[in-house]
């Protein structure tokens, strides 16, 4: 009975793949509307299926020890290689089902939104085809049954991201950005691959067989149990090193410092793409990967978790600092994304049972909080990006200088943007509060230092988000620009997704806030949890109050500085610290550093000699052989002189020689 419900789960992957193929092959022959409808319909179906799966999964009975069973409806061997084999299949467990909901919802909203945003663009069909490809890849990534399938879809996601960032391919910045994104993530994926190979080689398996109680469907290839003990026996450092290498791959995809450089430039792509890929789904792939491998981290690589924590902390701080000084609204949102993902990473990192024996970690609160933040962040960040898209659509520019005072013209966008800003700031009754608060609680349980740093970063988050909000909707109106083209509210196809996402944000926020304080059931922690058991969130009142007060203080500060028609304090600060502002604006010169490293050091010292070797030695050998053959041929050429007498002479000579040889023998 259970299996029949999940037997349609392969459609979740198949439908977007089909729509990609149809749109890719026949898209140019269709009208824009048809292409958009095909893409959106298939995604609508996928969303319905994902919700059905979620209901079926979470509505099913729990196992004896209180966890949800991990269900594997499909698993087949794709590539047998001796002992190891690469499988492809679908694995349903709490985090993957949650991700299914997130991805399909946000993707559906983006599909609907793109009807309005991309209206009239050349390449509309191509856009929808790539969106389908991306959705399929991301869905495949989260339901992977083994790390190698995850890697395959990981790369596919990277390719889709490349295609979508470079969508406006006639523009040079877009091409450069797409190349940068792909190369940086690919570079990180190299480490990921090494980690996978080490892992697979030493534990004899690629499968996620450690993911709890597993119920296999009929006809599936059974998982080979990953023999972690064997790896440990081989050498103590193997498993932690493999896991850290995989984390580096995830850090590239999730834009952790110093591999974050691609994400701000990825904003060259269309805004719905930024909403889908670079806010809600792809960039959380790294977080998801650690969550998936979490049992191994907890058991074998606890000391290495501190790497995760500190990378996350530093990234969050760096991104928040840079976001305070950006003038392009999409860049602000991009750095905000980097910062929030760092929050998620930190949450996962601090989630160790009984770490240092300091405080009990409330059954790995950090894991739950990280996943919850992933969910809520996807919703409100997508809402923010889509709202930014509406604004850009209205004002035809990304810069804050062209905006200001837009609340008169765009009421719906104003309200939804404001709600999402409250959510990201962590105000109670908005969804961001519950998740962020839980993260900070977990951080305090891990170490007070980390806890206070994260609180400070949360304050910075509130500050720059409201700076952005006031800069767009309040402040001085840019009258000259608005004379030519009065900004108008976006069409319904664009505002409805905003409203839907806001409703989700508010709904989750209100429910979880009340549930957390009143101890109700049915909250997030009951479904997704590191141990899989039923966990009811209780808010630690002290920490909740502290973070709320700090957030409100930051908002007030931002209001004070930025709300008015002119900003004297901001200008004074700018004059006092020009170099600091400039450095923050230039993202602390990270791009320049990377350019220097690659161009001066790697290209000059490594690439050039290798290229010289390849061109002169390797090619030279073959050129020489060809030249030699040519010369030999040329030297034989005069033998064919057309002169019969010469032929006769040679004939005679040959005969004489043969005779002599025969005589000798």
């Amino acid at each position, binding site marked *: 009975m259970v299996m029949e419900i999940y037997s349609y789960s392969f459609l979740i992957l198949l439908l977007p793949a089909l729509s990609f193929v149809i749109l890719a092959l026949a898209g140019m022959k269709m009208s824009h509307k048809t292409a958009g409808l095909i893409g959106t319909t298939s995604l609508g179906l996928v969303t319905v299926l994902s919700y059905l799966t979620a209901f079926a999964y979470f509505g099913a009975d729990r196992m004896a020890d209180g966890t949800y069973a991990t269900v594997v409806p499909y698993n087949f061997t794709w590539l047998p290689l001796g002992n190891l084999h690469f499988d492809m299949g679908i694995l349903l467990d709490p985090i993957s089902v949650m991700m299914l909901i997130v991805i399909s919802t946000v993707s559906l909203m983006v599909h609907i939104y793109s009807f309005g945003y991309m209206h009239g663009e050349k390449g509309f069909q191509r856009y929808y085809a790539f969106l389908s490809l991306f959705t399929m890849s991301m869905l495949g990534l989260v339901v992977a049954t083994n790390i190698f399938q995850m890697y395959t879809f990981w790369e596919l996601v990277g390719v889709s991201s490349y295609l979508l960032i470079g969508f406006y391919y006639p523009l040079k910045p877009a091409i450069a950005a797409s190349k940068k994104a792909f190369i940086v993530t690919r570079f990180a994926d190299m480490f990921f691959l090494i980690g996978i190979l080490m892992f697979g080689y030493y534990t004899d398996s690629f499968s996620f067989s450690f993911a709890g109680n597993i119920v296999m469907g009929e006809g599936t290839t059974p998982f080979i149990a990953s023999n972690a003990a064997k790896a440990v026996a081989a050498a103590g450092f193997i498993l932690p090193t493999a896991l850290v290498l995989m984390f580096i791959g995830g850090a590239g995809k999730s834009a952790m410092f110093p591999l974050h450089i691609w994400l701000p430039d990825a904003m060259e792509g269309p805004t719905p793409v930024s909403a889908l890929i670079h806010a809600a789904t792809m960039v959380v792939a790294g977080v998801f990967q650690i969550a998936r491998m979490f049992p191994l981290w907890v058991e074998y690589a606890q000391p290495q978790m501190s790497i995760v924590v500190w990378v996350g902390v530093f990234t969050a701080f760096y991104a928040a600092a840079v976001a305070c000084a950006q003038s392009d609204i999409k860049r602000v949102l991009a750095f905000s994304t980097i910062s929030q993902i760092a929050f998620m990473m930190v949450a996962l990192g601090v989630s160790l049972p009984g770490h240092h024996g300091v405080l009990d970690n409330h059954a790995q609160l950090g894991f739950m909080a990280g996943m919850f933040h992933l969910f809520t962040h996807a919703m409100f960040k997508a809402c923010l990006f889509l709202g930014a898209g509406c604004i850009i659509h209205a004002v035809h520019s990304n810069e804050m200088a062209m905006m200001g005072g837009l609340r008169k013209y765009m009421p719906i966008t104003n309200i939804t943007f404001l709600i999402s800003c409250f959510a990201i700031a962590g105000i109670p009754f908005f969804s961001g509060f519950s998740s962020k608060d839980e993260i900070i609680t977990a951080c305090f349980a891990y170490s007070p230092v980390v806890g206070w740093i994260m609180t400070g970063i949360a304050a910075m988050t509130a500050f720059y988000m409201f700076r952005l909000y006031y800069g767009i909707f309040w402040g001085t109106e840019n009258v000259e620009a608005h004379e030519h083209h009065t900004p108008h509210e976006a069409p319904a196809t664009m505002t409805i997704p905003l409203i839907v996402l806001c409703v989700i944000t508010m709904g989750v926020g209100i429910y979880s806030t009340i549930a957390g304080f009143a101890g109700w059931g049915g909250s997030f922690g009951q479904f997704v949890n590191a141990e899989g058991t039923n966990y009811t969130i209780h808010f630690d009142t002290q920490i909740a109050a502290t973070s709320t007060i700090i957030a409100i203080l930051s908002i007030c500060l931002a209001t004070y500085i930025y709300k008015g028609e002119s900003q004297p304090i901001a200008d004074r600060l700018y004059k006092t610290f020009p170099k600091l502002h400039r450095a923050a604006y230039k993202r602390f010169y990270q791009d320049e550093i990377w350019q220097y490293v690659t161009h001066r050091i790697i290209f000059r010292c490594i690439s050039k000699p290798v290229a010289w070797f390849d061109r002169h030695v390797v090619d030279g050998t073959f050129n020489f052989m060809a030249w030699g053959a040519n010369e030999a041929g040329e030297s034989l050429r005069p033998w064919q002189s057309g*002169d019969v007498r010469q032929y006769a002479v040679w004939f005679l000579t040959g005969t004489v020689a043969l005779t002599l040889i025969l005589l000798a023998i």
Partner: protein
Amino acid sequence: MVPVECYFALSALLFFIGVYGFVTRRNLIAMLICVELVLNAVDINFAAINRLLYPNGMEGMFMTLFVIGVAAAESAVAIAIIINVYRNFHSDSVDSIKNMKW
């Protein structure tokens, strides 16, 4: 009787004179004449061997007969070719037919 070695010596001498002439001469017809010399040398050889080794058989003689016939035929064809060459290249020198040169 003439010692039998003489025949063979004569035959060999004639053969190589023919070969030398073929290699050295430029005129096409002169080259053909030298080919005839070679063929005749071979004929002498056949006849002498026949007389020497096979007193009762006549194979050598018939061989010689047929060689004469074949030589005649081949001369006819060669002359026809040379006439064609002369018509096309207007020269009877072997240097003119070097078309097959690279």
